[in-house]
């Protein structure tokens, strides 16, 4: 039972975390908003005053904007489809009785623990290198011409690398969800002669729907922000410049802070739209 004294003690204990996060959120956010309404070129004259919504209009109307949006959508959707579909299948497989289940689980999860710069560079050089990469060897073995993955199939390659990183996450969460499925229900369906596909669509998939939604939302938030994978593979060339990467280039490479900040505000709005849905589910879960 909470007394008045314990309530104020509780508030005091919460204060540092709340104040720090509030500062971490508000200070940069207000600065970004402020810069986005100004012409600010640190290396070419500094802050040149108020420009209204100029930066917002220019960011959207620049020739790089729509391709970046398209690239972002292709990468995010591509990775989502691959990781969720394969994740479901893999989770069902891993849920089956087998020998060495624990070890297989570890093998499948391992890529998630590899730092993004390592996985991007390992894929880029040791697998996707058009001369010495393992895939090039494989292609030659079958008598085909090796592909210059990161220049000729750049988007597919990035999707491949990022999917490899995120498949473990999807699999692990879906596997956790599947394990909470009542196995008697499945047995009953099996005894009643329900075919495999029917059992999948009428029992397993509905049971997984919430976990799938969570995987989709969390991955979307992280995928909208992928950086290192592009930074060390193509540096945004060959049509792999995502919205985040475009903003990064505007701010740090071409040092146009006003324009980049306007882009940043767009990115924040976009992420928040996704976040609202995620928060609803998480919030509902808190109630019970």
């Amino acid at each position: 039972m909470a007394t008045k004294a314990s309530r104020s003690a509780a508030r005091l204990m919460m204060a540092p975390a709340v104040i720090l996060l509030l500062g971490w959120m508000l200070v940069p956010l207000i600065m970004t908003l402020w810069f986005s309404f100004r012409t600010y070129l640190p290396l070419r004259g500094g802050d040149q005053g108020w420009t209204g919504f100029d930066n917002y209009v220019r960011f959207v109307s620049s020739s790089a904007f729509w391709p970046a949006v398209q690239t972002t959508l292709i990468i995010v959707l591509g990775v989502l489809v691959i990781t969720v579909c394969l994740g479901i299948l893999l989770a069902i497989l891993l849920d089956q009785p087998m020998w060495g289940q624990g070890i297989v689980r570890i093998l499948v999860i391992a890529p998630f623990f590899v730092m993004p710069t390592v996985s991007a560079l390992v894929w880029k050089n040791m697998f996707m290198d058009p001369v010495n990469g393992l895939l090039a060897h494989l292609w030659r073995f079958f008598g085909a011409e090796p592909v210059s993955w990161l220049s000729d199939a750049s988007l597919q390659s990035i999707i491949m690398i990022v999917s490899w990183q995120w498949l473990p996450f999807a699999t692990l969460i879906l596997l956790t969800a599947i394990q909470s499925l009542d196995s008697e229900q499945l047995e009953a369906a099996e005894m009643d002669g329900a075919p495999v596909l029917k059992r999948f669509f009428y029992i397993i998939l509905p049971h997984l729907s919430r976990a799938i939604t969570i995987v989709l939302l969390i991955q979307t938030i992280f995928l909208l922000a992928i950086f290192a994978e592009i930074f060390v593979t193509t540096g945004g060339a060959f049509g792999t410049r995502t919205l985040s990467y475009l903003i990064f280039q505007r701010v740090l490479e071409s040092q146009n802070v006003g324009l980049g900040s306007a882009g940043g505000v767009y990115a924040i709005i976009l992420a928040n739209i996704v976040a609202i849905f995620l928060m609803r589910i998480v919030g509902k879960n808190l109630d019970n």
Partner: protein
Amino acid sequence: MARSVSSRRKLINTGLAWAIGLLIFFPILWTILTSFKTEAQAIASPPIFLAFDWTTENYGIVMERSDYGRFLMNSIIIAGGSTILGLIIAVPAAWSMAFVPSHRTKNILLWMLSTKMLPAVGVLYPIYLLFIQLGLLDSRAGLVVVMMLINLPIIVWMLYTYFREIPVEILEAARMDGATLKEEVLYILTPMAVPGIASTMLLNFILAWNEAFWTLNLTAVNAAPLTAFIASYSSPEGLFFAKLSAASTMAIAPILILGWFSQKQLVRGLTFGAVK
């Protein structure tokens, strides 16, 4: 009733699962194998899988040439420091939210989560500018603080979900027996909370170790951790596959080992308790 499965079906499951597991793990395995080859063997055609002259010379070259120790130290300080600092701030907060909840607790938790969704690139320049002004650019202290702040919501959340599982009845019983607040915290709550705190530490250490946006953008030489060390291999120089592999293996090995211990916590931590 346990599902009775024919051993034939079990055999098929096993074969299929192992094949897929090995396929997914293969890039890591290949990196580790390549790190023990000579540069010439690393690009040999056709590729050599196991029948090469095992050598550890690449590890020596990498350590000598690129001051690996300093990068490793930075990674440990940044990941470890931010985790400990985060725990110091998050434990009291999570504790009070779990044991003295108010009508605002849920909203505070959700708001904390929302700060985690802020895209880093949207606030890159302000942080960059603040770092320059405060003299924190390329400093370990600056990165410890940033890493702590980006992981703080996850730390609070994870701790909160663990603390909430501690039954309040035990506390009440202790109070009835005349335990003081200090005894209550020290002898009852802390032992029950240790496993939760440990797994929170583990997961956050891993997340901070692998973080590659702020570490790449806010460091240059002095504070650069392993993520930046590996990124320096993105411009190739002659034959470097074996050296890249050795460097990569050294960067991921500690985390792979820690990661294996934290599979269960991973789900809880990254779904904010929504999937258990």
